[in-house]
């Protein structure tokens, strides 16, 4: 990460935005936490009265009852505070995760972004990093509660003995200085630990998805050995991280002992003269013990700020470059029991395609490293266009560049209008892209095809892709859960489901990347014929099959990233 990006991280502003995402819940949490922290002031005073009564042999029964009641009130306040904090906490986490997921899956637009690393590695950004930033905002509640307590305690103490109240403050300064000195090292240790964790999780992810490769080669042990190298590194980074954190924490809590010790030194004369009662001493010890924890809370805020900066930085890589604040953007989150589920966004309005033209389209690094250079092509409404050519000639790259999945130079015109953001434009119902190796998701067949869209057109695309035949054999029909990544379906079924997905909205433009492994010949022939009779859909298909080429209105042959021939019929 560059310094320029670092400077964009504003932990307080981002933290505030995280808190105010559910302002009402957060506000209630503040009030209740303050009450929870202030109640011990009162119980401390009751304790002083108890010890004074013990010294003078008065009855303490009434005082003990009051102590018990005060404690009970504190429990109720705590339970209520936790209830609000948890609801705020999960909502805020969901907001942050939604922002990252949205950026990663957006079809173009200013928010869209691509993955910095593997999907498995990105999971640590969704879990640990998101949690650490919410923790940072959460630490303010504790910090503020404690600060309120500290001010109250100092005021009460100074009414009894001003010197003692003053002495209490001294160690706090010392601790703050030491903490500041250690914090940069903690920051470095935390970063190293996160990197080591990322290596472990991404290696595990790859190992499990490549399970068969290890299994069939009988090399499971080799994978475990490699894993052990990575986990051993992480053990060392985790130990440095924890020890530094404990050192900062520990120095802070040692102030409680230092404070009481210093206070006793100062109080020796008044204790000897009898100006200070045992009750006063008990009160001072109780308050000083808790005051001594103040630096620990301050340190917690400082360290969680450092952790949060690392995490904001890592989550910033998941959203559009230079738009770090997108991570904490307030957006609809509906996860409470009484809230209706979030609806998918409506598709853009259909703009009938008369003519699609690409001019000078150039991609330096394509899908497999093979680029395309200076492509000029035009496609007329309702035509069937086939792109053919040897492997590595840039056919897939061309399709992916047109729909905006690859950054490209050049211009794309939809009815003579130049498209500023192809990725945002080439979505249903304007266009649909059927990838060579399409991905399915662990949800029902319907959801995989419709992706939350209206399903009135469903049965016709099921027929079109001959999926209806497969459905008859499935007990749950359209509600069949396809398993993780659609693995419960056969390869051919999965590709037909993806084909149905891209046909559902009857798109103006259909870009198909090599259907041959998805459909047998009869089905493919039938599909092309029926698309032709519907007539309005413009098709651009990558294919080597003669039956496709026979039906084409335009056959484009590519080689080495360039168009070598265009045959119109």
């Amino acid at each position: 990460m560059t310094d320029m990006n670092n400077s964009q991280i504003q932990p307080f502003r981002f933290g505030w935005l995280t808190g105010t995402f559910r302002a009402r819940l957060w506000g209630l949490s503040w009030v209740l936490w303050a009450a929870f922290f202030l109640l011990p002031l009162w119980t401390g005073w009751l304790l002083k009265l108890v010890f004074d009564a013990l010294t003078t042999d008065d009855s303490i029964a009434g005082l003990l009852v009051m102590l018990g009641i005060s404690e009970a009130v504190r429990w109720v306040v705590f339970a209520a505070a936790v209830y609000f904090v948890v609801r705020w906490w999960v909502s805020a986490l969901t907001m942050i995760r939604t922002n990252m997921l949205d950026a990663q899956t957006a079809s173009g637009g200013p928010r869209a972004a691509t993955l910095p690393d593997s999907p498995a590695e990105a999971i640590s950004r969704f879990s640990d990093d998101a949690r650490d930033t919410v923790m940072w905002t959460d630490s303010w509640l504790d910090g503020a509660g404690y600060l309120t307590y500290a001010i109250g305690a100092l005021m009460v103490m100074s009414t009894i003995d001003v010197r003692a109240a003053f002495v209490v403050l001294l160690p706090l300064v010392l601790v703050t200085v030491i903490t500041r000195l250690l914090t940069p090292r903690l920051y470095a240790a935390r970063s190293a630990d996160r990197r080591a964790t990322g290596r472990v999780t991404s290696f595990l992810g790859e190992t499990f998805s490549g399970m068969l490769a290890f299994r069939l080669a009988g090399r499971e042990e080799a994978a475990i050995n490699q894993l052990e190298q990575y986990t051993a590194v992480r053990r060392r980074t985790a130990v440095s991280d924890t020890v530094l954190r404990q050192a900062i924490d520990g120095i802070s809590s040692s102030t409680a002992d230092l404070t009481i010790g210093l206070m006793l030194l100062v109080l020796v004369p008044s204790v000897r003269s009898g100006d200070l009662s045992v009750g006063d001493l008990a009160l001072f010890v109780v308050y000083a013990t808790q005051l001594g924890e103040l630096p620990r809370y301050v340190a917690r805020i400082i360290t969680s700020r450092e952790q949060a900066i690392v995490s904001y930085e890592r989550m910033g890589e998941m959203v559009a470059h230079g738009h770090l604040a997108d991570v904490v953007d307030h957006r609809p989150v509906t996860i409470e029991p009484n809230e209706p589920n979030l609806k998918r966004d409506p598709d853009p309005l259909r703009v009938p395609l008369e003519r699609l033209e690409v001019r000078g389209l150039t991609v330096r690094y394509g899908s497999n490293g093979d680029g395309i250079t200076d492509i000029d092509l035009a496609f007329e409404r309702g035509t069937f266009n086939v792109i053919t050519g040897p492997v590595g000639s840039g056919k897939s790259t061309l399709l992916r560049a047109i729909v905006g999945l690859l950054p490209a130079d050049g211009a794309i015109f939809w009815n003579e209008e130049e498209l500023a953001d192809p990725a945002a434009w080439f979505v249903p119902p304007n266009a649909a892209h059927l990838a060579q190796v399409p991905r399915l998701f662990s949800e029902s067949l319907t959801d995989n095809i419709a992706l939350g869209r209206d399903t009135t057109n469903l049965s016709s695309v099921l027929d079109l892709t001959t999926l209806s035949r497969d459905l008859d054999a499935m007990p749950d029909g359209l509600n069949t859960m396809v398993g993780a990544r659609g693995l419960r379906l056969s390869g051919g079924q999965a590709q037909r489901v993806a084909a149905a997905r891209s046909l559902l909205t009857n798109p103006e433009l259909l870009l198909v990347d090599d259907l041959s492994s998805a459909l047998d010949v009869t089905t493919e022939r039938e599909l092309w014929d029926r698309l032709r009779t519907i007539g309005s859909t413009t098709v651009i298909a990558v294919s080597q099959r003669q039956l496709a080429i026979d039906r084409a209105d335009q056959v484009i042959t590519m080689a080495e990233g360039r168009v070598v021939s265009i045959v119109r019929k």
Partner: protein
Amino acid sequence: MDGQQHWRALFGLLGPHRGRVTAMAAVLTVAGLLPLLGPLLIAAFIDDAAAGRSQSRLLVLAGLYVGVGIVRQFMAVAVAWTATDLAWRVTNELRSTLARHVLGLDLAFHRSTSPGELVSRVDGDVTALSEFMSDFAARAAAALVTLAGLLAVVLWRSWPVGIGLGIYLSLAIGTMYRLRNWAVAEAASEQAATGRMLGEVEERLTGADDLRSNGGGSHAVATFQRASAAVLRSSLARERQSVGLWVMSNIVFVVGGLMVLALDAALLRRGTITLGTAYLLFQYTQVLRGPLDRLSDETERVQRAAGGMKRTLELLDEESAISNKGTEHLPSGALELNLDSVRFEYADEDNPIPVLDGLSLSLAPGESLGVLGRTGAGKTTLARLLLRLVEPTEGSIQLGGVPLHEIDLVELRYRTGVVSQDVHLFAASIRDNLTLFDHSISDDEVRSALEALDLLDWVEAMPEGLNTELGPGGSGLSGGEGQLIALSRLFLRSPDFVLLDEASSRIDPETEARVTHAIDRLLAGRTAVVIAHRLSTVARLDEILVLDDGRVVEHGRTADLRIDENSHYAALLAVGSNSVLDEVVS
């Protein structure tokens, strides 16, 4: 599962680390006893002041108090160091055990569980355990030491109070102990909900391109929020239990404190104790309160760890449907293959559909068989059966005359090899991709395997030869080049039975020539089954089998079928094109 089992399993993990556990126990003992010194010093301070002792004596007591405070902090760091190191050592072993176990589970398990969820279970759950051990368990042990020391001091100061406190504390601890599993079920379901949510995210990220180009982003966000709603529900349920637990532990404490104060009053009135001792006895209830409050704050951690352990044990209980009980050995040299009326159907459906039926064939040692058929004909299932990734529903498969399930699985994996269409490549060096991270294979061995396949020049032409790093998912290599890697992987082991799922398309001519050449080298002298997509490959094989709808529709010697003009193969040859293979077959 009984509630104690996961804790016992956790302690079992410490077994091999006795030395480190002992060192940690020593550190914990010192750290646990130090908090008892402070109140003793203050009690002495109060009594000495009341007795009018010298100012210097009071100053010494106050100074000692400061010194004890400083030593305490050094001990806290020492505890963190030893505990964290031990916790990660132990849990890293558990991670390896789990990863090894998961790698051994069958295909059905891996199909129903996404890699993202597995990562969360093998690493996430175990990290919860490790945090539990280093943060919570160490602190709890120190609190126990404090407790024991405290009882000793109180007995010394006033034995009636000591006995009373002992009875009370054992009741209190008994109660807390009984509550330890208070929220385990809730914690486990919260973790499960989180795991499902993260698994879904991982899947969406993997398929992000499909979502982008099909305008499915907002659908992914909507279903993600539904999964998050389940997380919120389970978090609230778990938090309700945690708060209940915290309140109960507090009740125990407040009642204890109030009882000691009442006792103090009675004993003071009788003159059995001094005011300093009265203060000490009360202060000691506070000494335990601090650590216990903090432990209670972290009951979440205990619950998360218990949930993690529970899920970990469940994962370890998963058994592979493919048993590893075979003990038979294979004859040496090329192996003969026999299939006898093999039938296979997917077992997990209500009305099972046969994928393969009545499949019988024999393949002599060293012979090669090409399998043709369109998508869905059962080719992939046949391959999985031969590799023993699934077991036949009926019939038997024999390799070298031994039924597959009776062969020792390790030997079976060693003696058979496969190149699948979908080669899995790793974000690692070419060397690691070839050896699959087996560092015992020397570079010379790798080079000679590559040389045997005439691929050494290909690898050495890469930017950094064997050290060339591939991106995630092996990006940087084309599909055909992936095949070359897979062929070389195979050659490193020199198996006697080979299964080849030929790439159906998308190979550039130069790579294709290399692949063809490497396959020829590989098949020489080995029994081989090739799921073929190219006529040029089929022509070089000894026999041909055509599958349709799970049944054999043609089987014979290649040479015979070539001249039989009614055969499917002859029909294919007549068309004479590679790319139309499945067209004619269908």
